[in-house]
């Protein structure tokens, strides 16, 4: 006879099984990828023992070094620019009551989240190719501009969330205690907002670092970032080198996410 079990209202038949299955399905491929990045030997098909050889190959590959530097430069610029403008926008659109056109601002800011990337990519290709033709400039500026733009909603959301979670009484209290509006911003609003700003910058950094589609369309010749380099490699055979690069990027993402979790958790 089955053991009498406590009747748990939160359990639904099969749900736990499917949930666990989902987690396994989510992680099995990633784990495989990570494990295979440590595969010695030349074949991607056979386990040749633990080795860091593909990491060494990847790190010594001038094209990879180049693409990495380019990815980091773009991501840093994009994070700084998008976070700066998103902070201002968040200050302008929260906690001051509704005003005319607020919805329009929301829609424009969140637009990159809604429009399929391929459409934006095509649009930027058309726009920037004529600008390139007109100005003769074909530097990293286009990529930085494009990345800064689509990173804005990602930077904006945590900053806005932080601002909305902040008691408006904070600024009221500061004003009550003789702070001028500028002092209020300097001593109260900004320090309280900082975790949100850092979180926003981190998300923007990840999003920029990960971008494939828009970068692929906007970049000029010889402007590969790490993701577009990896996509290009796929035209040839899949190599463990790509696995090694992927694993490194994955580690970086997880590192930033943990830092993000710590920064946003501190609020209580």
């Amino acid at each position, binding site marked *: 006879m089955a053991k009498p079990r406590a009747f748990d209202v*939160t359990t*639904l*038949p*099969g*749900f*736990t099984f*499917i*949930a666990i299955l*989902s*987690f396994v*399905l*989510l992680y*099995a*491929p*990633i784990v*495989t*990828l990570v494990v*295979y990045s440590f595969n010695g030997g030349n074949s*991607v098909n056979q386990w040749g023992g633990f080795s860091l050889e593909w990491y060494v190959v990847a790190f010594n590959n001038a094209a990879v070094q180049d693409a990495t530097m380019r990815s980091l430069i773009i991501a840093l610029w994009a994070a700084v620019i998008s976070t700066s*403008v*998103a902070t*201002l*926008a968040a200050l*302008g659109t929260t906690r001051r*009551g509704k*005003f005319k056109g*607020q919805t329009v601002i929301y829609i*424009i*800011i969140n*637009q*990159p989240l*809604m*429009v*399929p*990337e391929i*459409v934006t990519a*095509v*649009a930027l*290709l*058309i726009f920037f190719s004529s600008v390139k033709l007109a100005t003769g400039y074909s530097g990293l500026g286009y990529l930085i*501009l*494009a990345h*800064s*733009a*689509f990173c*804005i909603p990602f930077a904006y959301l945590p900053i806005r969330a932080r601002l909305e979670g902040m008691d408006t009484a904070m600024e009221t209290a500061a004003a009550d205690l003789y702070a001028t509006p500028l002092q209020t911003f300097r001593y109260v609003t900004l320090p309280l907002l900082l975790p949100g700003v850092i979180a926003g910058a981190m998300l923007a950094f*990840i999003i920029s670092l*990960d971008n*494939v*589609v828009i970068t692929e369309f906007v970049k000029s010749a010889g402007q590969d970032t790490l*993701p577009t380099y*990896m*996509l290009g490699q796929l035209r040839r055979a*899949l190599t463990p080198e790509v696995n090694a690069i*992927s694993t490194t*990027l*994955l580690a970086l*993402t997880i590192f930033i*996410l943990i830092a993000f*979790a710590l920064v946003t958790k501190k609020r209580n």
Partner: protein
Amino acid sequence: MSKPSGQRSKGVNGWLLSTPALVLLLLAASGPLLIVAAYSVMEKGDYSGVRWVLSGEGWFRVLFERDIFDQTVSLADANLSIFWRSVKLSIATTLITFFLGLPTAWFIATRPASSRAFWLFLITIPFWTNLLIRTFAIMEVIRNQGILNTALMKSGLISEPIQILYTDTAVLIGMAYVYLPLMVLPLYAAVDRFDFKLIEAGYDLYASRWQILRRVILPIIKPGIIAGSILVFIPSLGAYVTPRVLGGGKNMMIGNFIELQFGQGQNWPLGAALSTVLLLVVLVSLVVYTRVSSRDNQDG
């Protein structure tokens, strides 16, 4: 200072502070979309680009083609099959992610508060991980010498590897894999707000588990279901990387088809028209979503 002028200064400040962000977005995100729309009604250029002459040819070519010799008009079957594949795969992706995602979201929301953050974090890692990396990861699993085929062959279930990679199935598996977190997160948000006392009330009133799910839980978390479905359906329809890597160039979706039009000697107006179509579909889904969710809010 009276209230109205106070409101006006609020608005001025709001717009002023938002201006840098808006300028950047109009320059490098929203603005160029208008150029796409404009390009879609231009005449095709000789090599690439457009000639500045108004023409409906781009839009015409979305659905139709002309015979090279006798100019007879017929439906463009190749295009239609790409559209059909995109819609079919996107709907299937949405369904798969929903059936996996709901139990997952439920599972996370019913964990004790102490471990909930951990389970949620397990979802956020893939969510923020490079889409290309995740596509590579799934490729590792399903390719002919990948772990799936190897395991099946070792177990003796099959003698020849099953060709999954470079098929529609591969694209479907890949999209379901990469977009699953997009379904789980809004569902979790909905389930997390769910009042479990309602289930007790349901059981108290003689409902079975199945009835509880159908009559109590699903109606209440409907906004989350719609949000998750939109979040999965839209990027699926516009998917580019996943079908390119896993479909192997043959099994194109709209995204890849659009890209193709922007290559050398290709048809930019057609590509622009296709992009505009995609944009309109997304717009309509979003409008439907806002309508439905605001109606739900009004109902209480």
